């Protein structure tokens, strides 16, 4: 049963922990994502930005069911209202749900890239689609005959994108699709995502390039230390730091090279020893004693924020 309002992807209270061996056979559980909730609707691009190591890629891998075997997930992931079980993940990934992986070493090193792209759909139809997609991304026909090691970083990135979009998936999860691409190629890639979204696909765009993302995204989710700090309309990011809600989002904008290029001190808390309180508190300029309590996500000015001081 899917109605018009059912999100294509709904993540509810997701938690991911890794069990790791310490000394000898002693096992320890390391929680890397906690209480993460996020929706992506049909025709929508939701950009996910945030600190590296905040769990952005893990979210992508959890949706596709390709986390390493020592990962334990709790909470729920729904695809078109249906709980994503491992069997469904196997059925949908590559066709209904496509991943554009973060690292170019996801390409098969022993297969010519043209064949890899065509594999995604299967059949001569896919081959034609792949060829058209290669052209669209400015890859010459001779590139199809090359192996991944013969490509530049930006070319390999474009091959990954082609491979994902060839099967016309309903949900695209793009994990850092633009690094290594020139400004024009990056803009073209994002414009294509916008077209795919306008054509009915849902896009989860994980990126550091917030500057590019806010021109195509509908909403932006800011991740910090394994949870969402803020979810806001992209408009608010364009209007600048004062329109944002969470102090981390504001610090994020301040650190951009085109803005102040001024980093805040410190690093995000290490997953193994999470503070009970607000995870951002030790770097926050607005911290008070009240921040030591539990902080839940709450609605504010058309967005959501996990901060008790935000107004």
């Amino acid at each position, binding site marked *: 049963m899917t109605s018009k309002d059912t999100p294509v992807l709904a993540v509810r209270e997701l938690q991911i922990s*890794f069990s*790791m061996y310490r000394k000898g056979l002693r096992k320890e559980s390391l929680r890397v994502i906690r209480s993460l909730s996020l929706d992506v609707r049909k025709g929508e691009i939701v950009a996910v*930005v*945030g*600190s*590296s*190591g*905040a769990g952005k*890629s893990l979210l992508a891998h959890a949706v596709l069911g390709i986390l*390493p075997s020592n990962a334990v997930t709790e909470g729920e992931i729904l695809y078109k209202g249906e709980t994503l079980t491992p069997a469904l993940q196997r059925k949908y990934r590559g066709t209904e749900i496509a991943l554009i992986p*973060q*690292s*170019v*070493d996801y390409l098969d090193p022993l297969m010519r890239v043209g064949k890899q792209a065509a594999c995604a759909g299967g059949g001569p139809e896919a081959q034609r689609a792949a060829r058209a997609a290669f052209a669209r991304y400015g890859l010459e026909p001779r590139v199809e005959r090359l192996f991944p090691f*013969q490509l*530049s*970083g*930006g*070319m390999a*990135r*474009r091959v990954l994108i082609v491979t994902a979009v060839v099967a016309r998936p309903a949900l695209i999860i793009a994990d*850092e699709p633009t*690094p*290594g*691409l*020139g*400004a*024009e*190629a*990056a803009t073209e890639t994002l414009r294509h995502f916008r077209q795919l979204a306008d054509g009915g696909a849902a896009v989860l765009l994980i990126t*550091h390039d*917030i500057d590019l993302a806010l021109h195509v995204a509908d909403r932006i989710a800011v991740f910090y230390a394994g949870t969402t700090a803020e979810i806001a309309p992209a408009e608010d990011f364009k209007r600048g730091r004062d329109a944002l809600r969470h102090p981390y989002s504001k*610090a*994020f904008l301040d*650190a*951009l*090279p*085109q803005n102040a*290029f*001024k*980093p*805040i001190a410190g*690093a995000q808390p*290490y997953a*193994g020893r999470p503070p009970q309180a607000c995870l951002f508190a030790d770097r926050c300029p607005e911290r008070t004693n009240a921040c030591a309590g539990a902080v839940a996500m709450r609605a504010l000015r058309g967005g959501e924020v996990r901060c008790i001081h935000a107004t």
Partner: protein
Amino acid sequence: MRLEAKQLSFRYAKGEPPILEDVDLRVGAGERVALVGPSGCGKSTLARILSGYLEPSAGKVLWNGNILPKKGFCPVQLIGQHPELSVNPRHRMSKILCEAYTPDADMIAAMGIESAWLSRRPGELSGGELQRFCIARALAPQTKFLVCDEISTMLDVITQAQIWELLLRATERRGLGLLVITHNRALAGRVCERVVSLPEINCAL
């Protein structure tokens, strides 16, 4: 303390068109230069030639007027675009960090490297976390010049600003030269004194 490329040409295979042809580039002592250009124009190839990983097909790389040394520690160090590909996946991070020298605690703290990461293997860290190790590893005392090939695109903007702040401080204190490959014009303007467009100096294009 200057790095020069003299009439460099390079082709990946015989019979293929060259990717670099007659490239001349000179970066002086303590100078910070950005190298820009569209993807596939040979930026990373040039970076790998300048740091001694690839032999040019023609032309030469000069360090202080002499040919770049082939043995011993290379004064020109490369920090790569894909940190996950520039570390040994079977080593623990503590071993990777100390491949060239043993960084002191200040350096480790300044890079934002958590002590708990040291006992992990590369597959258990994020791209941004790995890149901090690669940068710390390249900043050995013998290093005189850094070639930075898109080193911060996989970092979040706060970490990017932190790492550049640290790198710039280290290069200034030690008088290191810097060649920065980036697609981010705003970043190039922030960290470099001069911008060189590779298509303009590369006769292959």
